[in-house]
């Protein structure tokens, strides 16, 4: 029995923004006459799906376009190994032959419009009045896939994986791995059997690429004209390839206890000065705490003080002997000196906050669900203007020695679709990596607005080796600084030389 269009994947759950509901209603309200809604989807000539009326629209978003309702072609036909052409027939008797640029059927969507169905791809849209779509392709004969998962929300991700497996009739074996970087590298070195797909984060790239543990996600090397806009893809790309398909992200956020901070800050003047004042007037044993020893937490301040990019594009290392770093350190040291900031490592800081002993901490949004479960009173704010949050992207990579690289790519394409990303991210308190999917997840959990604001101003954690070198060296040097064993100028001069040498000499 061919699948019913739209039946396989439920519509976005009720917790949806008002604006979105209106948009959906409008989309559904422009139904055509019954005949115009008739459409047939075929696969190599044989009918795969037929539906005379669309009941449950599957909401997607086209890149660069506004939100619309439709059904990804990839969800209607079997998985393909090689996509040859798409033959489109229209109500007026005409036809169109599309030769897709790649094998990704999930990038093609059947969309209802006021004058009939259209077929929309990344770069083109047919005219309205589509009555038949015949996908000509080589069916994928792979039947099993293995996936390594990590971090939060694994149960939800596994549910989505199960849905993918059932829908397409493949076996997917997923397992939780504490550290996918270590496991991928170790497996490659030992010539073991890696999973076909593994979740990674962007700063894993240098180790994984160097070890030959992953392969580029070739179909996705055709990046948008402004890759800087798509921060998720920038997080997993170097100057040659896209190495993973981004899935979701976390962000640096400000966490505060309103009982100790005297309420929320004045968001009308939520900048570095406003943040400073907010922290200074807080009560509690500790007014503000974060791990100032770590460059991961210092760098947002450095960027906020005017550093244009973490890695110097000409010198190809993280230069620290510059004005922005100096200013950032003076700022942080002043907060320490006047008692506003207590430098604490992550576990201690979190314990203090949970115990109601710290009024304000800087943390990652990944920590928020844990706090919810503890019933701790807290509010979340984005980093203020003048402090640039890091965006921590997680994505799916294909192992270089995958036995099923094509099925792995189909998996990545499926999980790259906005609706799937929104559904999963909404459940696990993340944001979808595909920023076109933001409206789909708006309001689905309490942090969506903060995370969306963070995305606007944030930068991905750098994926170059130079960043890791900088982070590792600064860990030691910042301790000297905060211990008073060096002054800022001494520390920066020494650090810069060490970082440059370590970066150049591997």
């Amino acid at each position, binding site marked *: 029995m061919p699948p019913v269009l739209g039946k396989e994947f439920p519509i976005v759950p009720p917790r949806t923004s008002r604006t979105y509901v209106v948009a959906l209603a409008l989309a559904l309200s422009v139904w055509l006459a019954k005949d115009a809604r008739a459409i047939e989807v075929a696969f190599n000539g044989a009918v795969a799906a037929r539906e005379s009326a669309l009941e449950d629209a599957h909401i997607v978003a086209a890149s660069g376009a506004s939100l619309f309702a439709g059904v990804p072609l990839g969800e209607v036909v079997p998985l393909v*190994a*090689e996509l040859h052409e798409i033959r489109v027939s229209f109500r007026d008797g005409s036809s169109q032959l599309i030769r897709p640029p790649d094998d990704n059927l999930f990038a093609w969507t059947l969309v209802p419009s006021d004058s009939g169905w259209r077929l929309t791809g990344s770069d083109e849209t047919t005219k309205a009045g589509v009555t038949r779509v015949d996908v000509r392709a080589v069916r994928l*004969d*792979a039947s099993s896939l293995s996936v390594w998962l990590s971090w939060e929300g694994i149960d939800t991700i596994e549910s989505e994986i199960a849905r993918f497996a059932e829908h397409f009739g493949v076996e997917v074996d997923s397992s939780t791995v504490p550290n996918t970087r270590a496991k991928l590298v170790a497996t490659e070195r030992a010539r*073991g059997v890696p999973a076909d797909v593994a979740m990674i984060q962007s700063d894993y790239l240098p180790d994984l690429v160097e070890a030959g543990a992953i392969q580029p996600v*070739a179909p996705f090397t055709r990046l948008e004209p402004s890759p800087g806009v798509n921060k998720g893809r920038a997080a997993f790309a170097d100057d040659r390839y896209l190495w993973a398909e981004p899935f979701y992200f976390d962000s640096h956020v400000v966490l505060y206890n309103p009982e100790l901070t005297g309420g929320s800050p004045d968001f009308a003047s939520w900048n570095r000065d406003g943040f400073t004042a907010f922290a200074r007037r807080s009560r509690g044993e500790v007014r503000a705490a974060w791990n100032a020893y770590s460059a991961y937490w210092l760098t947002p301040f450095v960027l906020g003080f005017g550093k244009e990019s973490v890695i110097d594009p000409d010198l190809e290392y993280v230069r620290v002997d510059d004005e922005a770093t100096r200013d950032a350190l003076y700022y942080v040291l002043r907060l320490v000196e006047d008692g506003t900031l207590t430098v604490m490592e992550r576990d201690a800081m979190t314990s203090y906050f949970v115990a109601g002993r710290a009024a304000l901490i800087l943390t990652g949004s990944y920590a928020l669900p844990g706090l919810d479960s503890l019933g701790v009173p807290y509010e979340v704010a984005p980093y203020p203007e003048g402090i640039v949050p890091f965006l921590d992207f997680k994505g799916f990579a294909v192992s*270089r020695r*995958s036995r099923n690289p094509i099925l792995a790519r189909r998996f990545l394409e499926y999980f790259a679709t906005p609706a799937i990303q929104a559904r999963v991210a909404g459940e696990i308190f993340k944001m979808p990596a595909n920023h076109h999917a933001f409206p789909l997840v708006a309001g689905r959990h309490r942090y969506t607005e903060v995370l969306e604001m963070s995305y606007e101003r944030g930068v991905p954690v750098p994926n170059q080796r130079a960043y890791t070198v900088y982070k590792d060296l600064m860990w030691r040097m910042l301790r000297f600084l905060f211990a008073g064993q060096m002054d800022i100028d001494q520390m920066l001069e020494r650090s810069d030389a060490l970082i440059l040498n370590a970066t150049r000499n591997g």
Partner: protein
Amino acid sequence: MKKVTITLVLTIIATSFAPAQSGTPDAVSGASWKVELEGIRTHELHAYEVRHMMTDGAQEEMDVEDRNGQFTYAGILLSQVAAFVDGAAFEEPWRFDRERWLAGYEVTVTAVDGYAATFDTSEVAPDAILFAIERNGEVLDRPRLVGSVARNLQVRDISKVELALGSSEGYQARRDFRLTLVANDDTHRVSLAQLAESPLFARGRGQFTTSAGSVYASEYGGVYLLEFLEQFVRITDDTAVTFVASDGYEMTFGISQLRTEGDVAWILAFEQDGAPIPIDPGYIRTVKIGPDTPNIPGHLSVKMVAEIRVSGEPVREYTLKLRGQKDVDLDRTTLQSALAFEGVTVTFTHRGESNEYSGIPLHYLLAYADDPEYTPHGQDSAIDPYNREAAMRGFEIDLVATDGFAVTLDSREVYDNDEVIVALKKNGEILPESEWPLVLVWDEDAAVVPNGIRNVRNIDTLRLKM
């Protein structure tokens, strides 16, 4: 005077000169690609090698349907490609290790865009996959795999084929091993794969005797030691070479102990009896090889060599420019490698003083620029790269020094004349400043001494006036 092998010397010149990122053009078809092969050994597979195998009877064809229609692909079996590096043979003819394939090992095929697919050979018949280089009679830009196998494996635009042969724990370690060479204050690191691909590679029998009187004789494969070191540092009589093993053992040699004596030479061996030397006593050990299985005391055969320290004068770079039907620049390492593999030594007498000069016969160098199309070993071996007709008809050859001094010779007197050489060494040493980097000399007993020949020193250009 040593006889030179034309094919081998020009192979070295051709392979040393070929730009890193492109293959050698297949003159028949114009296809220019190379595929990295990695297995028990490594090999760069060029288009002309596959074509040669196809014309020699290894051609296979398969019909396949893809997005553009039905096509007939031609090439050789992937198993024949595996034969280059599966260890059954370390030289031509490449023997396919069928037993090993059927027992199963992993093969990873990578495309130029990074796409990679892996399979276990025990799950695929040796004749199931074609390494195709033609489609419907037309040459493909790069090879691809076709066959009655999963679509995954039908990789297009292949750049690399890896065979996971060797023990799992040793594989990566062997791949990661680097021989460290400390020359003056510079440190160089060389992989086993780079040594295996070096034009300095040689094989021969060698033997060492332990202090207990046990004798160990084997066939060893490795790189000529002195010539290898000369790539990084100038070797003189005062040079000392210290070998440091991974267990800390050190042995220092004076250079006189390491010099080549007739057909007996020291090598850095990394193969023993056809197989890579394992980490103990390898990956590298020092041995002498020669036709009569030369023997050395056991303590001089340093095993597990991890580092070599040499102090000497730094190497000076130079280029020989060949200008003719093609413009070609040959660098120092190319010329030195050619000399090391099998050069020619002549006795040249000048102003009553006789010296031994080692170099490359002049006519071999001319073959590189004497026609616009063919290069030595740049096409099917059935095609003669030498423009013999032009040489026999006669053209002028200018040998030009750095100060502009030039001598003109006739190709008819130079051609096939091994006794007229462009020398790189004098009495076993790099040329003195007055002659460096290259000098034209001829044997005192040469059968044909070209008219007008003079002892041109400091040569930097050969001009073929064709």
